[in-house]
C-alpha cells in the first residue's frame, strides 16, 4: 500500500505543472465552502449574542425582524416613534419588572447615537447574561445633571481616539453634511465601555434629556433659523422626552411574556408591537436562510467543476501513460494496482487541494477580521474547524475520491486490453 502511495505521489509530482491548476481549483472550492460556513456561523453568533435577558422589545408596529434590526442591531431605521406615555403604561403592568426606553436617529462620524436612561447600563445584558462593564469612567446621570455626558462603546473610543473628557459633536440623522451637526452643543465623554463584540461597541450613549436638549431648537430635522438656544439655557426647558423609538422590557417571570405581548398589541392608545428577541431572530434566519442555501449551492457547484477538471486532466494524460502502465504490468502490477495508482493520484490531489483551501480560509479570517469588525461590527474568530466545516472538508475529499475512480477505471480497462504491448 505504501509502495503504491509513493508511486502515486512520484507520478503526480512528475506532472505537477498541469495538476497544480486542478489543485488550486479544488483549494478554491474548499475555501469557498469552509469560508462561507465560518462567516455564516460567526454572523449568526454575533446577532444572537447581541442581546440577552431582555424579554420583549417594544416599538411601533412594523415587522418583528425590522424592529429588532433597528433597535438592537442598529441596522436600518424606525418607521415610527412611540410615545413615552405608552412606555410608562407598559412599565405599570403588573408583570413588568423594568423598562428601558431607547431613542435612536442621530449619529456621530458613522456611529449610532442612542438616547437612553442610566438604567440601561444595569439592565442591558449580552452574550450569556453578561452585563456591560465600564473600562473607564461611569454612566451619565439621568436628568439635568447628566446633560451632555456621553458614554462610548469600545470601538468608537478606539477608532476615534477618544478618552475621558474628550469633546464630541453629534450629527442629526446619519448624514455627513456640515449643516446637520448639533455643533452648538458639544458632549463630554464621561465613560467608556469594555469591548463586548456587539453593536454596543459602535454606539455613543447619551441620556434622553440630552437627546431632547440638542433638538430643542430644531424643527423638522433642521435647526430653526434665527433661533438658537445655548447649551446652558436648554436646561431651563422641560427636557422630559415625549417620544422614543423603542423600549426594552424585562418581566418578573418569563412565562408572562405572552400576556404582556398581548397587552402591548391590544394597547388602545397607540399602535404598538412587542417581540420576543429569540423568536424574531429565528425569523431573521428564516429570511436569510434562503440566501445562505443559494450561496452554499454555488460553492458546491464550484467544487463539482473543479473535480470535473481533475477528471478531465487525468483522463487526457492517460494516452501518454500507456507505456508507463505496460512497464508496471511487466514488473508484476495487476490491472487493479493500476486502478489504485490512478485513483490514489486523484485522491492525493484532492486532499492536498482541500488542505490548501482550509489554510486559505484560516488566512482569510485572520486578514479579514479587523476589517469586518470595523465596518460591520462582526467578530470573525479564527478557531479549530467546526464539525460542519470538517463535514464539508470530508465531502470534498470523498467526492474527489469518487471522481478519481473514473479515470482510474479507464486506466484499468486500458491496461487490461494493452497488456505488455500498448498500441500507441
Amino acid at each position, binding site marked *: 500500500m505504501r*509502495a503504491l502511495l509513493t508511486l502515486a505521489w512520484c507520478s503526480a*509530482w512528475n506532472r505537477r505543472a498541469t495538476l497544480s491548476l486542478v489543485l488550486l481549483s479544488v483549494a478554491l472550492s474548499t475555501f469557498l465552502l469552509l469560508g462561507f460556513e465560518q462567516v455564516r456561523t460567526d454572523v449568526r453568533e454575533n446577532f444572537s449574542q447581541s442581546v440577552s435577558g431582555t424579554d420583549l422589545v417594544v416599538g411601533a408596529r412594523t415587522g418583528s425582524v425590522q424592529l429588532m434590526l433597528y433597535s438592537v442591531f442598529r441596522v436600518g431605521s424606525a418607521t415610527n416613534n412611540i410615545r413615552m406615555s405608552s412606555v410608562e403604561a407598559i412599565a405599570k403592568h403588573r408583570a413588568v419588572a423594568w423598562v428601558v426606553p431607547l431613542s435612536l436617529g442621530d449619529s456621530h462620524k458613522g456611529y449610532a447615537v442612542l438616547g437612553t436612561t442610566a438604567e440601561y447600563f444595569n439592565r442591558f445584558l449580552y452574550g450569556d447574561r453578561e452585563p456591560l462593564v465600564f473600562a473607564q469612567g461611569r454612566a451619565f446621570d439621568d436628568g439635568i445633571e447628566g446633560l451632555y455626558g456621553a458614554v462610548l462603546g469600545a470601538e468608537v473610543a478606539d477608532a476615534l481616539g477618544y478618552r475621558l473628557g474628550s469633546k464630541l459633536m453629534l450629527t442629526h440623522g446619519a448624514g455627513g453634511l456640515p449643516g446637520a451637526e448639533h455643533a452648538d452643543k458639544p458632549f463630554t465623554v464621561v465613560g467608556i465601555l469594555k469591548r463586548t463584540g456587539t453593536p454596543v461597541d459602535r454606539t455613543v450613549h447619551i441620556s434622553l434629556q440630552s437627546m431632547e436638549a440638542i433638538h430643542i431648537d430644531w424643527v423638522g430635522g433642521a435647526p430653526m433659523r434665527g433661533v438658537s438656544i445655548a447649551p446652558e439655557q436648554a436646561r431651563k426647558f422641560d427636557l422630559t422626552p415625549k417620544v422614543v423609538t423603542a423600549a426594552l422590557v424585562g418581566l418578573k417571570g418569563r412565562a408572562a411574556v405572552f400576556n404582556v405581548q398581548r397587552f402591548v398589541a391590544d394597547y388602545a392608545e397607540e399602535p404598538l408591537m412587542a417581540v420576543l428577541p429569540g423568536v424574531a431572530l429565528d425569523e431573521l434566519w428564516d429570511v436569510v436562510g434562503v440566501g445562505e442555501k443559494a450561496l452554499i449551492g454555488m460553492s458546491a457547484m464550484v467544487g463539482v467543476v473543479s473535480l470535473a477538471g481533475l477528471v478531465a486532466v487525468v483522463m487526457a494524460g492517460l494516452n501518454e501513460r500507456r507505456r508507463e502502465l*505496460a512497464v*508496471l504490468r*511487466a*514488473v*508484476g502490477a495487476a*490491472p487493479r*494496482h493500476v486502478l489504485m495508482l490512478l485513483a490514489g493520484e486523484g485522491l492525493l490531489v484532492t486532499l492536498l487541494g482541500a488542505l490548501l483551501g482550509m489554510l486559505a480560509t484560516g488566512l482569510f479570517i485572520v486578514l479579514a477580521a479587523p476589517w469586518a469588525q470595523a465596518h460591520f461590527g462582526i467578530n470573525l474568530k479564527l478557531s479549530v474547524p467546526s464539525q460542519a466545516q470538517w463535514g464539508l472538508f470530508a465531502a470534498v475529499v470523498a467526492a474527489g475520491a469518487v471522481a478519481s475512480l473514473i479515470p482510474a477505471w479507464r486506466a484499468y480497462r486500458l491496461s487490461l486490453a494493452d497488456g505488455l504491448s500498448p498500441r500507441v
Partner: protein
Amino acid sequence: MIEAQDLRFAWPTTWGRGKPADCIAIDRLTIAAGRTVFLHGPSGGGKSTLLGLLAGVLLPRTGSISLLGTRWSDLSGARRDAFRADHLGYIFQQFNLLPYLSVLDNVLLPCRFSALRRERATQDGGSPGAAACDLLRRVGLAEELWARPAAQLSVGQQQRVAAARALIGRPEVVIADEPTSALDAALRDSFMDLLLDACRASGSTLVFVSHDERLAARFDERLSLSAINRPASSETAEGMS
C-alpha cells in the same frame, strides 16, 4: 521451463465479423531451464503476441502454455500477475523505465510487487537496495547516475538499467523484446554481453526476441518464429493441415 502445447490464439475482431483468424498457432515449443534462446521473427509476425502469451498477459484460445510447470490458464488473473512478478523479468524495446522514479527505485520495482524476489535480493546483497547497486555496477552504470530520475538518462543507459531491473531477485525467466533495436552498434554489443553474462550468472532462462539475425550467434539456441508458428492465414493458403 517454458512449455507450449497446441497453442492457439486470435485477437478478437471488432464488429464480430465471423470467426477471428488465429495469429498464433504453435503445436509445440519447449525451452529448457538455464538456456539462452534467440527467437527470430520479422516485425509484425506475431512476436509481441507470443511474448504476451509467454508472460501470461494474454491467455490462449485453446491449448496450454506453462511456465515452471504451472499453466497460465490455471491461474486466476490476480495469481497470474503475482506469478509473473515472482518469476519473470521483462525488457521492452524502449521506454522501459518510469520517468518519475530514480534509477535505483526503478531497479527495485519488482521487489515491491514480489515478496519472493525481495527475499532473493536480500539473500544476494544483504538488502534489496544493495542487490540493486550490485546489479547496476554489473551493467556498468556510473554511480553518480543512480539517484537521478530515469528520464535524464540516455537510451543506452536506460536499457542497461532495464536489464538490471529484469534481473533483480534472480527471476527464473527473462524475456527481452528487441532490447537492442534502439541502440547503435557499439552499445548493442556491450549490452548483449552484459545481458548474457548476467543471465548465465544467475542461471535465468533468457528468451531474446529480435528481427536482427546477426545477434543469434551468441545464444545457446536459435528459434525461428516463422518456422514454429503456423498462423491461420498460412493454413488457408496451404489448405487445412
